[in-house]
């Protein structure tokens, strides 16, 4: 799950990771009050679930509360387009108003899972403020890494190595070490799946702050973090995806015109790939899970058809434990109930596939019945033309 910068900073603060003073505002009036309380120069930052906000005009430094009011007024409600939002952009509904800092250097620190060794790795770099992927590709020697033993956690010597490696001295060094250890504690405690502090800034008076903070949380661990569940922002999600999640359907909207309904994530991806190879464009990823009951299929249809771009639907179910004849009955029932009026290509394979074919044929509904994966792809193209 993604959370906003202001929410991430709220969590970090609880774990004694230094963040600038600031608050979230939902109106220009609130922004003015916060700026007044902070006093002096403040930064107004648009809160959307995407990076690259600065370049898109979503981060502004202002001198006083009056300017904060004006800037926040302009930012709230604006459609912010960054390289991560896609061309349609995202509407800004809240801004973070923060104290301005006297920045000496911009650095980077982050924690991710290193899948190759199944351990967390803390990465630090002197190249703050740029995308770490770019640094990794162009100057990998500028990324310092410390792999963390899960039995002991991040050790002080590791934090020291990183801090010295960044060229920090005196108070900055001391504060950075404390920052790194606290950041690791926060990461583990909240079951994060990513933490990126970019930039991590050091100030002239020797302090170290998270100027930006991006934290993702492991969806699988939500059951033990009721407080974090409440941070989910439905405004940031595709409405059809929110709808699908209510039915426990795994749906991701895409830009194509062939809707697909599949059991299993791998088969669902392979089906999307096959549609593309056949000359179509998948409209979505949809994994209906192992059971593929009539109810699931019906909900799946509703979600897929909620996308006006969809011109054909491909149903690809490999029945194992779940019997194909049951799935076929469910498809027929759901299609009748909803009144699907676009071509439906159905491929059911596995247990009782023959009987399933008969049910579809005798339904009186117009199904294009495919008897192999290849056949399904060809029938999709046929349907589109």
């Amino acid at each position, binding site marked *: 799950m993604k959370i906003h910068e202001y929410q991430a900073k709220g969590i970090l603060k609880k774990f004694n990771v230094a963040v600038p003073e600031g608050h979230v505002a939902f109106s220009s009036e609130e922004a003015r009050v916060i700026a007044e309380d902070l006093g002096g120069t403040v930064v107004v930052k648009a809160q959307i679930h995407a990076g690259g906000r600065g370049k898109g005009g979503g981060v502004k430094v202002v001198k006083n509360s009056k300017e904060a009011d004006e800037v926040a007024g302009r930012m709230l409600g604006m459609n912010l387009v960054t390289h991560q939002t896609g061309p349609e952009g995202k509407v800004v509904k809240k801004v973070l108003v923060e104290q301005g800092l006297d920045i000496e250097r911009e650095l980077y620190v982050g924690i991710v899972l290193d*899948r190759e060794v199944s351990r967390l790795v803390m990465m630090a770099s002197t190249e703050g403020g740029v995308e770490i992927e770019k640094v990794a590709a162009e100057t990998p020697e500028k990324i310092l890494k410390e792999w963390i033993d899960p039995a002991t956690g991040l050790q002080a010597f590791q934090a020291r190595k990183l801090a010295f490696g960044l060229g920090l001295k005196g108070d900055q060094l001391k504060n950075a070490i404390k920052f790194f250890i606290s950041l690791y504690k926060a990461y583990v405690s909240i079951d994060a799946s990513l933490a990126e502090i970019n930039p991590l800034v050091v100030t002239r008076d020797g302090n170290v702050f998270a100027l930006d903070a991006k934290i993702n949380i492991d969806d699988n661990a939500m059951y033990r973090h009721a407080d974090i569940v409440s941070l989910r922002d439905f405004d940031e999600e595709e409405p059809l995806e929110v709808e699908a999640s209510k039915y426990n359907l795994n749906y991701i909207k895409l830009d194509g015109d062939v809707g697909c309904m599949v059991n299993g994530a*791998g088969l669902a991806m392979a089906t999307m790939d*096959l549609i593309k190879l056949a000359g179509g464009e998948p409209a979505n990823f949809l994994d209906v899970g192992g059971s593929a009951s009539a109810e699931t299929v019906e909900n799946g249809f509703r979600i897929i058809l909620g996308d006006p771009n969809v011109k054909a639907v491909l149903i690809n179910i490999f029945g*194992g434990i779940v019997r194909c004849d049951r799935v076929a009955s469910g498809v027929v029932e759901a299609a009748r109930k909803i009144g699907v009026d676009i071509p439906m290509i159905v491929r059911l394979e596995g247990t009782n596939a023959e009987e399933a074919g008969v049910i579809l044929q005798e339904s009186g509904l117009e199904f294009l019945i495919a008897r192999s*994966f290849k056949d399904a792809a060809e029938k999709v193209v046929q349907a589109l033309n």
Partner: protein
Amino acid sequence: MSILVDKDTRLVVQGITGSEGSFHSRQMIEYGTNIVAGVTPGKGGQRFDDRVPVYNTMQEAVEKEKANTSIIFVPPAFASDAIMEAADAGIELVVCISEGLPTMDMIKVHHYIASRKTRLIGPNCPGIISPGKAKVGIMPGFIHREGHVGIVSRSGTLTYEAVHQVTQADMGQSTCIGIGGDPVIGTNFIDALALFEKDPETKAVIMIGEIGGTAEEEAAGFIKDNMTKPVISFIAGRTAPPGRRMGHAGAIIAGGKGTAADKMNVLKNAGVHVCESPADIGDMVAKAI
């Protein structure tokens, strides 16, 4: 021969009295798998379906029934504990079917079993089957046929698709392993490929990968240096958008890394027969053999 599971497998089912556990236990018994015990804490002393003894702890199941393999059907919040209990009891092969384990738990599990003799398959996987010998998983047994093609995959139903295509092409499988779709797993591609390379019955291996991580790239290096048998591969997710988790926790293109195109290129360069279409897996295997 086959790898990891066969007629010598003595299986204990962790969570045998739950709905998933009991359903699949019956399916496995029907297939001919030798289930020697079940474990559900607090239900020790009962018998599952009047035949399989249920114990409170894995230690008892191992001591009394000489179980050497376990399969786990417990809810995700308790699954990491179940894996570690099995490892502590000296189980050689643990297959974790449970889906939805927090990554932080799996990092600990990975560390815990590293210093023990236990091999883990999964979590979030369909399990493992040696057709005609033993089924330790939730896959439909009837689509499989005894034969010489080894299959290793990060997916569930896509593995069934591959199995089906192999069977349709008049071939069979030596062993099929679903290694799971999570970012932290036990047995990986390289482990499975090494076992298949050593297995005299396996003549070719199908490796089904997907977007996310670098397991396929690492496997490519291993294949180039160590595999004498043909490897056929399909990578799912060429049309997957970056930054989105495609169903599996581990299936995500992050920071431009883990794309299907990259994986396919690296595998091709390592001499792997890479299928452009998921419908071509069976034909490609027939050609490679």
